């Protein structure tokens, strides 16, 4: 038996396996990936031989994407490695991070929403790190390993540009105005996704950590998040590229609405019961190895949680959320190697 399984396994490239799974086709075992973006594995230990800042420098970004796969065993390339790429051109001040800490917003743009919409024009190809990320996708493009282009959802980008509390209040106080702001961000994010596809991205992954059922409530999620996801996914599908969406936090109240988005796979946080999610979702399911466990846990425990994920029927195994940069390679390998050994 063993040789046949090995035989069967070697027939599929990582790219074929992942794309087949996303189409709902049967494969030998689930792929194990870490898409990039908010959920990236460019941890400190992976970056040790990379000199320049992998968040800014094209060669360093490309090298880091390759290093993640080679060193941790995740079966994909994914860029960028943070979620401020889209908010940077709109006047938010960003600390571009280093080998220990991810890029993050240090100061919001305090101009009015109208001012921002009127005064900023974003062309992704010419926009600093969106441009670099598109070029990195171009360089990473290949026949065997899937390249994932990551985008940040419109709500998380909006709340990285302006004060999140103000933005959230606007959902109540001036819903039309904040909707226009979301539309503005969505439009250039969509161009950015298309540019990544043109550059060779095999898959687009969307993370929108501020847009959770817990923060917004199901009604707001359906009103302010879902329509934009639908449009984004429909646009990407025109290029025959599949889409993964990651939902943070407890998603129980919004699971049903995700079925209508047309998305190919949904990724959930560790608090979501994957058997429950599986019973509700009509799309493929990705997840959800606890990231705190990956950071501080023991190898045996990581393996048993990974097994638990696979047993509950996830189609793609991945970390449940953003990884701490202090996560050890040893722990990540415990997860990826367990999946590759097969059930």
């Amino acid at each position: 038996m063993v040789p046949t399984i090995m035989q069967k396994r070697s027939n599929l490239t990582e790219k074929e396996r992942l794309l087949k799974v996303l189409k709902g086709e049967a494969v030998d075992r689930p792929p194990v990936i870490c898409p990039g973006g908010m959920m990236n594995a460019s941890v400190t230990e992976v970056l040790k031989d990379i000199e320049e800042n992998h968040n800014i420098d094209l060669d360093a970004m490309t090298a880091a994407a390759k290093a993640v796969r080679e060193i941790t065993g995740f079966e994909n390339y994914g860029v960028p490695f943070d979620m401020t790429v889209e908010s940077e051109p709109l006047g938010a001040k960003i600390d571009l991070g280093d080998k220990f800490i991810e890029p993050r917003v240090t100061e919001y743009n305090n101009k009015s929403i109208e001012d921002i919409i009127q005064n900023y024009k974003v062309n992704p190809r010419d926009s600093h790190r969106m441009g670099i990320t598109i070029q990195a996708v171009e360089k990473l493009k290949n026949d065997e390993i899937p390249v994932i282009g990551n985008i940040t959802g419109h709500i998380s980008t909006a709340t990285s540009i302006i004060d999140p509390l103000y933005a959230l209040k606007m959902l109540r106080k001036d819903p039309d105005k904040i909707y226009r702001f979301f539309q503005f961000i969505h439009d250039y994010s969509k161009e950015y996704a298309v540019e990544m596809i043109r550059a060779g991205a095999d898959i687009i992954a969307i993370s929108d950590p501020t847009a959770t059922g817990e923060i917004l409530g199901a009604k707001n999620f359906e009103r302010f998040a879902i329509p934009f996801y639908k449009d984004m996914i429909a646009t990407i599908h025109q290029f025959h590229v599949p889409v993964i969406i990651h939902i943070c936090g407890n998603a129980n109240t919004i699971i049903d609405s995700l079925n209508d988005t047309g998305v190919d796979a949904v990724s959930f946080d560790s608090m979501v019961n994957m058997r429950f999610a599986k019973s509700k979702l009509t799309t493929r399911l990705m997840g959800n190895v606890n990231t705190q466990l990956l950071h501080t846990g023991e190898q045996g425990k990581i393996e048993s949680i990974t097994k638990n994920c696979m047993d509950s029927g996830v189609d793609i195994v991945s970390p449940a959320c953003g990884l701490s940069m202090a996560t050890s390679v040893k722990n990540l390998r415990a997860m990826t190697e367990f999946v590759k050994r097969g059930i």
Partner: protein
Amino acid sequence: MNKETILKEIRESLVEMEEEKVVELCEKTLELNIPAYETITEGLIPGMDEVSRLYEEEEYFLPEVLVCSDVMNAGLDIVKPHLDKSSMQEPIKVVMGVVEGDTHDIGKNLVRIMMEASGMEVHDLGRDVPLERFIEKAEEVNADLIGMSTLMTTTMDGMKTVIDRLSERNIRNKYKILVGGGPISQNFADRIGADLYTKDASEAVRRVKEIFGRA
């Protein structure tokens, strides 16, 4: 309009997010010589308590809580200048912030808003706060409680550092320590010797009040 009716209307209008109406009603309480203290403790604060309850029951979410808290503050602005200070209980003093290395502050801000809404005096140090700063500020304002939050596993250990430093200086018992945020658990709180962990903002307010016998 009598006192009971007007206070009830304040509570209800606050929950309904009707800012102008709350402001109008608060002005009316002044005309009717209703003590500011009563308007606050029987109108605005119970209104906000009801908002917390709706939040815990997942009827209200962050946008609604934030708007209600603005309404409450608009009401407070009207009546506070007329407050007879001696009628108020000394508030629970809180120093809080997101620990160094982390800039995620939605959760912390929500806790601050709800604490302020329940009458606590909150000194918000913001986000990415150097650990020593928590101690300095707590000493400076003579705080009752130090609250620390983080969303990242990398910065969790900073909370323990703060607690250890307080112990080293023999001032640990001067303060109650509250910790919270995505990766924090009761187990972690116990391990680092924090007094209190809560999973959300409204529970935090309730438990803090309990700890200080103000429930």
